[in-house]
């Protein structure tokens, strides 16, 4: 009887201990569980950025390219911004990818910038096209908005309009003297000068790039990989032939030269599904 009583008491005590153990462990030990994901019919996209010249992957620092003007040239580095990346779904739905970052900086010297896991959840289904703005619209191109490197090194001085470079392509071409000469094919805000060569107004040189032959599918719960490809040679090709011997090594204060770049930019980019 005593043993039986003791065993019953022991069993009760053991139950209390176990119950309390569970209570204590669950209250103290566990990190809070995230809310369960709602059963969304969404996926995500991952963007890579790459560069071709004459249809082949860009080889840096190598004098192996000839542009449409006949300039022998090499490419040292490319840095640029894309903003307002937007995808279009069949049926007319539009989605601007701005869930976490409204712009993305690409720098051939920094491999991590050449891919982008886009934060936004995207409705599953077929998409017609992707577009983005090359550079920034004026309203978004605010000086001091980037305080950290590498983006802050893209600063576009106030005298020339302020904000940031949309793009830098640094390279060299063989000048008529036979020497290498550096070119800084830099595009950003343009300027209108008065007769004394003082800037009196500025020009938004950014433009939309619509990659409308870019059908792709976003699948539920998966990443869709896409590549935004820059054909570097196209900046110098059509509709206007860009001749480094004409425009020289620096064009930031030369709206006419930047305008040629912008015009030629119409078919520089391509969307590729690997």
């Amino acid at each position: 009887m005593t043993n039986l009583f003791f065993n019953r008491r022991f069993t009760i005590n053991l139950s209390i201990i176990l119950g309390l153990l569970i209570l204590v462990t669950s209250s103290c030990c566990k990190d809070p569980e995230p809310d369960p994901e709602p059963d969304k019919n969404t996926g995500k996209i991952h963007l890579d950025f790459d560069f071709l010249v004459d249809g082949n992957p860009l080889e840096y620092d190598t004098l192996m390219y000839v542009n449409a003007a006949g300039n022998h040239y090499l490419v040292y580095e490319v840095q640029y911004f894309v903003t307002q990346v937007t995808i279009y779904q069949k049926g007319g739905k539009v989605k601007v990818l701005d869930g976490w970052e409204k712009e993305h900086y690409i720098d051939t010297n920094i491999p991590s910038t050449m891919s982008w896991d886009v934060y936004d959840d995207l409705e599953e289904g077929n998409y017609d096209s992707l577009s983005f703005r090359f550079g920034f619209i004026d309203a978004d191109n605010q000086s001091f908005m980037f305080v950290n490197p590498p983006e802050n090194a893209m600063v576009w001085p106030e005298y020339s309009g302020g904000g940031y470079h949309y793009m830098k392509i640094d390279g060299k071409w063989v000048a008529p003297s036979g020497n290498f000469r550096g070119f800084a094919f830099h595009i950003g805000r343009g300027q209108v000068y008065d007769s004394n060569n003082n800037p009196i107004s500025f020009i938004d040189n950014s433009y939309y790039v619509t990659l409308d032959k870019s059908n792709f599918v976003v699948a539920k719960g998966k990443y869709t990989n896409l590549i935004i490809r820059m054909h570097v040679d196209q900046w110098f090709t059509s509709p206007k032939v860009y001749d480094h011997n004409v425009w020289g090594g620096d064009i930031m204060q030369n709206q006419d030269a930047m305008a040629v770049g912008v015009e030629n930019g119409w078919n520089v980019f391509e969307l590729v599904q690997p």
Partner: protein
Amino acid sequence: MENKKIFSWAMIALVLMLSLTYACKKDDPIPPEPDVKPATPYNFVVPKGFPTILNIPEDNPMTVEGVKLGRYLFYDGRLSGRDDPDSLMSCATCHLQSSAFEIGKNHPKYPDGHPYGLTGIYTPHYPLPLFNLIWNSEGYLWNGFISKDNHNLGIPSYGIPAEPQYHLTNIESLVWMGVVAKHEMHGTIEMTENMIRSIEMYPPLFEAAFGTKEINIDRISKSIAQFIRTIISADSKFDKVIRGEANFTQSEQRGWVLFTTEPGADCFHCHGAPGNPLMTTNLFYNNAKDTIFNDPRDRYGVTKNPRDHGAYKSTTLRNIELTGPYMHDGRFKTLDEVINFYSEGLVYSEYAHPLMHKLDEPYGHGADLNPLQKADLKAFLLTLTDHTLLTNPDYSNPF
């Protein structure tokens, strides 16, 4: 039976205590050692417009006590491991506050601006100023050898073993390297550790900074690095103009335009603008000053990338008036010589950075500035002198 009840409830209590201890243990702070006050976190204030990314290693958070200790060590000539008057050397021997923590002009010991170590060996390169280093994540020294990307440990040729405290990644590395470098203190780690241990004032300072009185090169390096990270230049006339507290003169304004325009002097691509107030990208460029490249300590010496032949760090232009001689080899003694170089002294090589685009017609050998433009550019550069840095008592010699 009563005993058994007591036993049962005692068991419950014991298990509960153990459970609570186990369940909550990982969140409990490690109790401090008795009688040692935890170090006080240092409140680093980022000036408006400056980068918010700070190069502070995880294993060396800044504390008030660490900075205080580091300031003493920075100025203590016994860091060399010797105490006879002729053999004293510290960071401050070469990096004078009055010269923006550089050698500067008219240095009492190194009048030509080129320092040498305790045994008379000249440094391979001229020094760089020690301010705003907390914002440099692109590597230290003229070639960026000291960098987060450098995974080597120790220096075998100096007998420094491949141990974690002898990393080559950050400001801390520069301290222990200075102790052993033949062109600097030319001492040993042991000499320095023993010397600092023997000085009565230091054990309590180490205890306050690190929790115990132990003195070793790792803690010496960390505390000096903490102090160096506090040294900030952000209050020049240029800064005041940007903040709306002052105005440029007409000459300074014209110089500013030259500085930031490509047809002008085009300095800003490498040396900053209001949106990059460090006045440097901290990156590396061949700035067209040579045709032959045989310095084993250029950027190529680190990367082995042919594009980096003859490339060196773009130095900050803050306090440039005070930080001559200029370039890695001190070839230009005055600011005027530097301006003349960029105006008409560039020399052609295939390794010149593309941004040095004035090496051919229609420019020739540089920006081709006229005398007025040179004067204006210099006037602007002089606005980068920060007298607050030069006189800030927090950075001064505490002895």
